[in-house]
């Protein structure tokens, strides 16, 4: 059984069809990509998966359970995490505090714990800190943990987002254009990181990306959509030679499938 199974979902906003009868699946431990020209509806697919949008029809199965009626926080709790296309860090908080947000759904202390500080609460706080620091270490910015998130350079802020998503301890991680705005070295490290997340942590990955070089290097399976409609699916080579894909991209994208 696939880890994620999207079944014929459709979504429209006031007459404009954004996702059109789209189906695809992701196997456990895969690194998959969702690509398509600008405005093809990729981020909308992510928003459907994470519960921010409700598809008008179809079904989304994650680990065999439907996500159609679940709120975003329930979906995250259920093991799917995401990053945002435009950075959405908690700007006035420190890097560590940002990452600690990911641990919220894995911990339980409430009002009583806050007021009385019983042993369980202290242990939990230490645990939150430990895991968060490990996540920061994993993406390589543990040194910056006490700095305000907004003071970091752009590339490092991206890494805070990844660490934050990792801290939710997901089974499936959705990256929304993780390479946007990164320089050549940073992209290289991103590719390594994606591999490490899958190989060392055993997390399945789905990414949306415009950088075709990167997509072709990391993805094992690629789904291409245009106007919310699936036009091709397969391995990197297959996709690169698919006439439909070439047509969809031709003249629209600078770095089309090279």
């Amino acid at each position, binding site marked *: 059984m696939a880890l994620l199974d999207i079944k014929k979902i459709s979504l429209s906003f006031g007459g404009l069809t954004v996702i059109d009868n789209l189906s695809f699946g992701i196997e456990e431990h895969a690194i998959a990509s969702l690509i398509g020209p600008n405005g093809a509806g990729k981020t909308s697919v992510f928003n459907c998966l994470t519960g921010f949008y409700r598809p008008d029809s179809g079904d989304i199965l994650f680990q065999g359970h439907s996500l159609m009626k679940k709120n975003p926080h329930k979906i995250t709790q259920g093991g799917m995490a995401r990053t945002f296309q435009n950075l*959405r860090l*908690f700007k006035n908080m420190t890097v560590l505090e940002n990452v600690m947000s990911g641990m919220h759904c894995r911990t339980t202390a409430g009002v009583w714990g806050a007021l009385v500080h019983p042993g369980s609460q202290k242990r939990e706080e230490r645990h939150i800190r430990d895991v968060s620091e490990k996540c920061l270490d994993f993406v390589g910015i543990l040194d910056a943990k006490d700095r305000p998130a907004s003071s970091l350079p752009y590339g490092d802020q991206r890494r805070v987002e990844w660490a934050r998503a990792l801290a939710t301890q997901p089974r499936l991680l959705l990256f929304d254009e993780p390479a946007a705005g990164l320089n050549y070295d940073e992209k290289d490290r991103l590719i390594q990181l994606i591999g490490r997340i899958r190989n060392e942590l055993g997390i399945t990955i789905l990414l949306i990306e415009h950088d075709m070089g990167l997509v072709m290097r990391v993805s094992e399976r690629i789904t291409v959509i245009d106007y919310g409609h699936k036009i091709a699916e397969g391995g990197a080579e297959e996709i690169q030679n698919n006439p439909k894909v070439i047509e969809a991209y031709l003249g629209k994208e600078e770095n089309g499938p090279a």
Partner: protein
Amino acid sequence: MTTDTLVSRTTGILGLIETHQKTLLVLFLAILIGIPAYANNYVLEVLANTWFYVILCLGLNIVVGYAGLLDLGYAAFFAVGAYTTGILTSRFGFNFWLTIPVAMAFATLAGVIIGGPTLRLRSDYLAIVTLGFGEIVRIAARNLKITGGASGLIGIDRPHFFGTELNQISHYYFVFLALALLAIFASYRLQHSRLGRAWQYVREDEDAAEAMGINRVAIKLYAYIIGAVFAGIAGCFYAAKMTAISPETFTFSQSILILLGVVFGGMGKIPGVVCGAGALVLFPEVFRGIGSMRLLVFAVVMLLVMLYRPQGIWPAQKS
């Protein structure tokens, strides 16, 4: 003196305060406890009133400052506490202390009823709904038999504390001081907890918080209920102190006054909010002449604070 030297001196003083924090705190507490031995009743009344507003402002601060929700009917929760104690002691012969848990339960219930459905919506809707709720509570108190109608309740029992009837202003000075200290402690602990962080996440970016697995509605509801409970407890003791309550204590202006204390001092900052509450009570005492202009002055202050110093008068924390 140039601004620079002023700033460096202030930071110098702040630094001194920081290094001797514990000693200063003990000294300050000793002074607060010693005051009733020397002060006259007028001073005690004003100070007791100050502590009382510290509790209310800190309670509202949890809603406004921590969770970033605008509550314009906060006085309603204060009314819930005061009327619960009033009705239960004067009509049903309850012991005062037993009314506190009941009042807390009612405040929680009111918080859930009003917050549960509206916290899903945009924050400005909450503001107007709380405003409406505040008015509903006041109108209900005015028109119901059990609350004594427009003239309110009289003959509320004084509580006993280890055999002593609490009937002196100095007693209430200590009662409200203790409650205010408790409120400060609770606020501090809450702010620096998993829950406190979650409030800040939601305040900064609701969607990102939700994507991180935080149930924003539940988190806001927590803030709303805790705020309600603060006000409910304060209301119980208010009823005991006054022995009489009337609907006119729980008006929109009352809610606004409490909000002003929070905004003026600095939303989310405990020492700031305490100072804001103090300013609220002391200002009209010092400037007696302004009388009915008081709210006008307060409103202008509120506007100026928002325009020129939205973080409030209390300096920002160094990080």
